């Protein structure tokens, strides 16, 4: 009998993680959703950000058992059928990323923020992303990607 049940990317998933196992490790190891990356495991870099019940959370700071009953979206579930959604497409168009390691967390953070603040300006976007560290880009291309996505969403 599994100990926890949760919804991940729209599907019910169950498991029996050790009490000490983080949500990030559960997603990566038990569910093989390796898109979620671990960059610091102490809640600073944001690479492990997933959307849980509509909010961006750091899956390295949360235990898997705490996520029981929750609705989790990871980078694999952001777009339709694993394809790129609007935000990812805009980031591709904007050459947002280089090495790609911070990308899942950055994208999930931006997705959660944009859904709540579709009219955000550049400074608000920078503040919203300031808890996610990218070592490659200097952020401008990422910010441009989020701005482009916001513009396209507003135009629709």
């Amino acid at each position, binding site marked *: 009998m599994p100990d926890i049940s949760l919804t991940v990317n729209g599907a019910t998933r169950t498991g029996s993680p*050790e009490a*000490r*196992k983080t949500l990030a490790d559960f997603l*990566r190891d038990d569910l*093989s*959703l*390796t*898109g*979620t*990356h*671990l*960059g*610091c*495991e*102490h809640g*600073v*870099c944001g*690479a492990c950000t997933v959307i849980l019940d509509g909010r961006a959370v750091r899956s390295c700071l949360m235990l898997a058992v705490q996520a029981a009953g929750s609705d989790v979206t*990871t*980078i*694999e579930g*952001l*777009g339709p059928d*694993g*394809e*790129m959604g609007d935000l*990812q497409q805009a*980031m*591709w*168009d904007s*050459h947002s*990323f*280089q*090495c*790609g*390691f*911070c*990308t*899942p967390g950055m*994208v999930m953070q931006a997705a959660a923020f944009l859904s709540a603040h579709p009219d955000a300006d550049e400074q608000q*976007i*920078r*503040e919203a*992303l*300031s*808890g*996610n*560290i*990218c*070592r*490659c*880009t*200097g*952020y*401008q*291309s*990422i*910010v441009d990607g989020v701005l482009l996505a916001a513009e396209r969403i507003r135009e629709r």
Partner: protein
Amino acid sequence: MTAIAAERYTGASIKRSEDPRILTGAGRYVDDIKLPGMLHAAFVRSPMAHARVLSVDVSAARELPGVVAAYTGAELEAMTVPGPDALMALMGWQGPTPEFTLLATDKVRFAGDPVAIVIAESRYLAEDGCELVAVDYDDLPPVVNAAFALDPASPPLFANLGNNIASPQTRHEFGDVAATFAGADRVYDFHVDVHRHQNVPMEGRACVASYDAGTGAMTVYAATQSVHVSKVAVAMRLGMEQDKVRVLAGDIGGSFGLKIGASREELAAAAASRDLGRPVKWVEDRGENLTTSGQAREESFDVRAAVSKDGGLLGLDVKMVIDTGAYPGMGAMVPSIVEAMFPGPYRMTALGFESTAAITCKATYVAYRGPWASETFVRERIIDLIAKDLGLDPFEMRLHNAAVITDPPAVMVTGRPLVGVTTKESLERIAQLVDFPAFRRRQAEGRERGVYLGIGVATFIEAAPGPREPGEPSGPMSLETMRLRLEEDGIVVLFTGQMPHGQSHQTTLAQIAADEFGVPFEQVRVVVGDSDVVPFGLTGGSRSATMTGGVALHGARQLKARVIDVASHLMEASSQDLEITDGQVFVRGDPASGIPVGEVARRAASGEFGAEVDASLEIVATFDGGEGGWSGGSHCAIVEVDAETGIVKVERYVVTEDCGALINPAVVEGQIRGGVAQGIGAVLLERSAYDEDGNCQSATFMDYLLPTACDVPRIEIEHLETVPLDADVNFRGVGEGGMIVAPPTLVNAIEDALSPFGARIYEQHLPPARILELIAEADTIV
């Protein structure tokens, strides 16, 4: 036929072919790999900076359910080959060579030195096992800085050296140093420090080593800048034949110089895999990354400058000391590059240079984006200091001293010709983009209100690849090799030893080959990351734009000639009359004649043309860099310093950069911005800090601060593409320049902002507390 004229990809910001996988979570980094029976490694690390290891007891760890094995340093030593740093050995280092084991045996040499490895069914269990390992240490005096390391009384870290010198003091003179100083109007003395900071890729070091006892072959999935350098290191330290080692790499989460070859921990994991006959994964956590993976810079300079009263920089005399940390490798080799580059783009006629590399109880010095960058920092810093003392504008002093394009070109006093260097042009363009007089007015108005604005400019050149020297048979960098093949489905495959970790090679090399060969971009595949398949190569030193871009161009040209030759038999036309456009071979001027290149490949493979036609559509190309050339540029920062809090805000940042012809402008600009962001971090935030006992004080992201989206401004970039030197290949490297020149640009701006306080700055790290000290030291408003 509609479009016979090919689209030109080179020079356009083609969207990256890497991105669809990266943006959907489908990238494959080392930690994403799961092999059947895979085990996990964790290390027991020294809490002491320097100590004798009296005993290591792993027995309790071995008893823990889930732990499969635990090895002490001595046990691992028996399974491997002790020796020097593999990269030093590969580069033919001739100086002092400390010999060491993968895990510490008799003593530990820095806080974090690995003393035991525990292998378990999960990383959680491996770390549980580490908790049960008992190590008995006996303190030794920690060698915490270069000054103590160079004191003959300091206890040697390595018995086979007898002292703590990784590279003994050497002195070289270029030009007539004594006469230049004797004839100078003014002689200045400065002491300039650069602090220890580090690469911090978002993915740390990582590997999965998998030994097959049946075949005696080792496969290592690695995060590395070169699968071949990693392969050599594994073979060397595990005592294996090189052909029995295969290194594979997929996506890599950044490196910036850190991941060249295989580290001690990766080699230890490989040794454990061989012993156990099961795959072993090791992924370093952030604490390990910050305290043990490697650190860079920490160099000090005593500089004398000979100057004429009109601001002519006549010559320099430099003493450099570098802190190489505990297991020296790259750090011992960097001073020679610093020496060669010290004159920069300036016409000085004398340089004296001496350097010493010291071994200390800190994490090992590693290459970090422009490892020799301190020459630019020191030179660009002292130009501002000298100009201020002479009452000159530092910007004008740079222009006054910069070599201009002449025929024959000016030559650096250390030997290299400054051919095609556009320092003057890049500075002048900065002045056009940034209205200096308007800024000075705004600055003056601000000061009246207690708002301290400052402006700083700095300039640099980078040998990426450097110029071909007159009469030299070979180019400035070692040969680059590429294998190219036309597949029967028409795909052009490039096999390269470049190992991209953010540089977008799978896009940029395909752009070049697609244009040269005449196929759509999507019809070119770039294969990387398999030592059994790709030629020797290394991503580093900003070499790939020229060297790999060049070999992609020439290789595609050679392959195209081969295809056209085969097609001439097929189409019964002369080779001279054939061309390849949009993936088809045409008789020139006859749009109806097109045959897909895949069809040519299929017919070639059929053997129908007989032995007299060379129908093999696979070639190996090499490129020596052609005429080479310099990268370079000038940067300008405008900052605001809050005199109450010491916080520095970068208000505007302007770059004029000359990297020759651009392959993909968006990729180039990403490299520049990323480098500038790291420079901002280095000056305002980042420091690898140690206390007086040698404890690392920056082991988390709460202590080692990285720039965020709120710290890095929009960076304005303008490209200069002024001087083509080569008939075909004028792409030049751009990976390191941003990080090389941003620190002096920012520090120059900060000193300018603090000029009402009379502050003079001789260091690179300026966090808020230090800014407040500088203001307090200056004491009175000038």
